[in-house]
């Protein structure tokens, strides 16, 4: 017999059409204490851990999904997702690991112009959004990922991006110019390119 709050959370998360934040859960359950909700959710996570469905949290929002190891039973041919082009996957990765990022910055990394369609596809998929403008000359639009991105790729949060820490530690998320100067040492009298807004 599970506690009333757990039952209520189970039902709400089961019935929900999209992931729900703890705030919304609290509101839905007549203002239940968020602490209690958190505790019940972690109970539920434990309860479902070895079952066919899992309770997961992505970017602070919660949902049930099937256990990944059962994918083969559930995959349906008719529902093949539209595959992303390689360009789109690269752009998505660049946005995710560098966000917020401007198109010029994306292009500097990829060495090619990014067709407008690529970002559109990612925005249409709901994974990338416009995150404002960078306050530099030209005020370029900058892009970032969405909560749905975390949902879709099963990421607890952006920190959960695979290899993020290693990439950061290796300086691979820094612009070329910054990395270049770091390598050449500060012996040079080159003032450097400052903001590192974009390589090349």
């Amino acid at each position, binding site marked *: 017999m599970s506690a009333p709050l757990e039952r209520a959370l189970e039902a709400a998360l089961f019935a929900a059409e999209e992931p729900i934040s703890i705030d919304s859960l609290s509101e839905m359950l007549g203002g239940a204490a968020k602490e209690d909700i958190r505790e019940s959710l972690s109970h539920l996570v434990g309860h479902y851990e070895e079952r066919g469905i899992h309770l997961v949290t992505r970017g602070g929002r919660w949902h049930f999904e099937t256990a990944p190891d059962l994918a083969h039973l559930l995959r349906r041919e008719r529902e093949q997702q539209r595959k992303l082009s390689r360009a789109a996957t*690269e752009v998505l990765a660049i946005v995710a690991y560098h966000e917020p990022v401007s198109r010029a910055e994306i292009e500097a990394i990829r060495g090619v112009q990014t067709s407008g369609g690529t970002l559109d596809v990612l925005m249409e998929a709901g994974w990338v959004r416009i995150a404002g403008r960078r306050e530099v000359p030209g005020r370029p639009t900058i892009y970032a990922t969405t909560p749905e991105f975390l949902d879709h790729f099963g990421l607890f949060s952006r920190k959960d991006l695979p290899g993020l820490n290693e990439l950061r530690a290796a300086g691979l998320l820094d612009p070329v110019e910054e990395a270049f100067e770091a390598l050449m040492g500060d012996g040079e009298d080159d003032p450097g390119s400052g903001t590192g807004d974009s390589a090349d």
Partner: protein
Amino acid sequence: MNDGTLLHSSGDISLDEWNGVAVATQTDDSALYLELDGWAGPLDLLLDLARRQKVDLRSISILALVDQYLDYIEQAEALKLELAADYLVMAAWLAYLKSALLLPKDEQEEPSAEELALRLQLRLQRLGAMREAAARLMARDRIGRDVFLRGAPEGLEIARRTRWRCDQFALIEAYGRVKARTAPAVHMVRERPVMTLESAISRVSAMLGVTLEWRQLEDFLPPHADPQLRRSALASSFVAALELARLGKAELDQDEVFGPLRLRRPQ
């Protein structure tokens, strides 16, 4: 013709590696354009070539890479493939880089060839890192491919319900308003007010002041359409006329019974 004949015959880079990533669609038309076939531009091609060195990108030989690239372009030209301009620009730049790298250090211009090579290497590393990251991202358990959401969620319906406010007083008042507005019973107003004797006296005496002629009593009545009020005014004015006559302030005259009653100021 596709990218496979040129590069992938050696087989160490398979696009299958890109888990979940679509290989650029290969139609007969696109076969003529290398960049559509497999590489998103010269940097991408360079990266593929660099990976074929099977070493860490930090320790690739830029010189060897340049050679590979130039070979590749040569091969492509031999096959009369139409190369996009930026591949050729890159080829020219790499040819320059190669010659600079081969010069003794003291003969190199600024920036040195080593610096240019380092920059190229850094760029390749970054692109490589993002490609790898993309592959790892795509390989995650993805919703709709590896994990599935509830197929038929009941949904959380937020019914916007209006709670109407109204209280007892408003209700009763509304009924009173309706009745007052429509019911004919509402016409049971009090008796029409009469014209008082005082006001008749003051009106008649005031009017006597402005004329010397005989005038009928009716001429002294206020102009009312309402017959009831008119009758009251007539009665009051008659009494007022008698009173004024008694006080010597008016003269009354009547020619016959029920004939018109006339009055004037005393001569």
